């Protein structure tokens, strides 16, 4: 089994290096781990920082296209290069690398085809306003796409190759997280949620989504829901 870890990075020069360093080098049941970092047109030294790691595949967008576009690029590359399991992992250092093994387990055991690492099954360390904001987005996802998740906005996910090929990502921006959930529901992909921990630092809090952004995401989901 070949695992690809896709890390979308936009202006993450401070954290992307330590995130790459922290990734597991070997996982039971996995023959090879490929790390794919997508530099999404960063204005800082993110690209230079990644280039210090020759073992990492660097995909660099010439201009910033947003989270959805960066994930799409990483996923497509992983599929083209024969990854069996694909994991998405945020570059801001909010995820615990040990959780990767946890979220790919249901796929390795053939129990699931898609796994979302939920930060809200045990929301320790998440500020209350984030919990409320995430809850609002989860409700919007339920109403618009008919699927309930405890953390529709999580950046830590795992897919089997087969599942990812079915998922059609059209959103370029932040609303991609809800779109992925919608695709899982529409294509009837077998999915589970696994509780993951979240490391909230001042840095990752400043980088994350603000609640006002959530309203924007809901609006775009709404337009997309009717758009196709």
């Amino acid at each position: 089994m070949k695992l690809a870890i896709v890390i979308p990075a936009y202006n993450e020069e401070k954290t992307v290096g330590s995130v790459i360093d922290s990734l597991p080098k070997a996982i039971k049941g996995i023959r090879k781990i490929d790390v794919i970092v997508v530099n999404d047109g960063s204005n800082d030294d993110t690209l230079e920082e990644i280039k210090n790691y020759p073992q990492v595949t660097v995909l660099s967008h010439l201009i910033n296209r947003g989270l959805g576009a960066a994930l799409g690029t990483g996923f497509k590359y992983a599929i083209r290069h024969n990854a069996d399991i694909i994991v998405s992992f945020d570059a801001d250092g909010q995820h615990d690398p040990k959780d990767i093994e946890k979220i790919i387990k249901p796929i390795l055991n053939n129990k699931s085809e898609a796994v979302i690492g939920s930060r809200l099954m045990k929301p320790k360390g998440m500020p209350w306003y984030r919990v409320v904001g995430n809850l609002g987005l989860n409700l919007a996802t339920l109403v618009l796409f008919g699927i309930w998740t405890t953390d529709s906005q999580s950046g830590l996910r795992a897919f089997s190759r087969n599942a990812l090929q079915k998922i059609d990502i059209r959103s370029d921006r932040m609303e991609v997280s809800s779109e992925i959930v919608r695709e899982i529901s529409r294509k009837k992909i077998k999915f589970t949620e696994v509780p993951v921990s979240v490391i909230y630092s001042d840095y990752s809090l400043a980088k994350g989504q603000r609640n006002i952004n959530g309203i924007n995401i809901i609006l775009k989901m709404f337009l997309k829901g009717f758009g196709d």
Partner: protein
Amino acid sequence: MGIKTLTIIFILFAWSRIALRVKKGNARMLELLFWTIIWFAVGFTAIYPGTTDIMARILGVGRGFDAAVFFAILILLYSVYRIYFKISLLQQEITRLTRELAFKDAEKK
């Protein structure tokens, strides 16, 4: 100069813009046809305002002018909708381009 003359001048100006774009090959003939019908209708109602009263009666609104405003808003809404989807299509194409360039760059190494 009354509102009639002003409207006609504006229509001629607006129509010439789209006609020029078609001539230069930047717009399709179908678009010209679409806008010709729209501007003709606007011009016609400006010259013969009485005709909108017939529309008003069919629609069930009070005055002819209200019917004209009703249609104007409808057309505006449709245009905004079209522009929204055109832009989102363009954005998808830009993303595809950016993506393929990133792949090419990675494969060179």
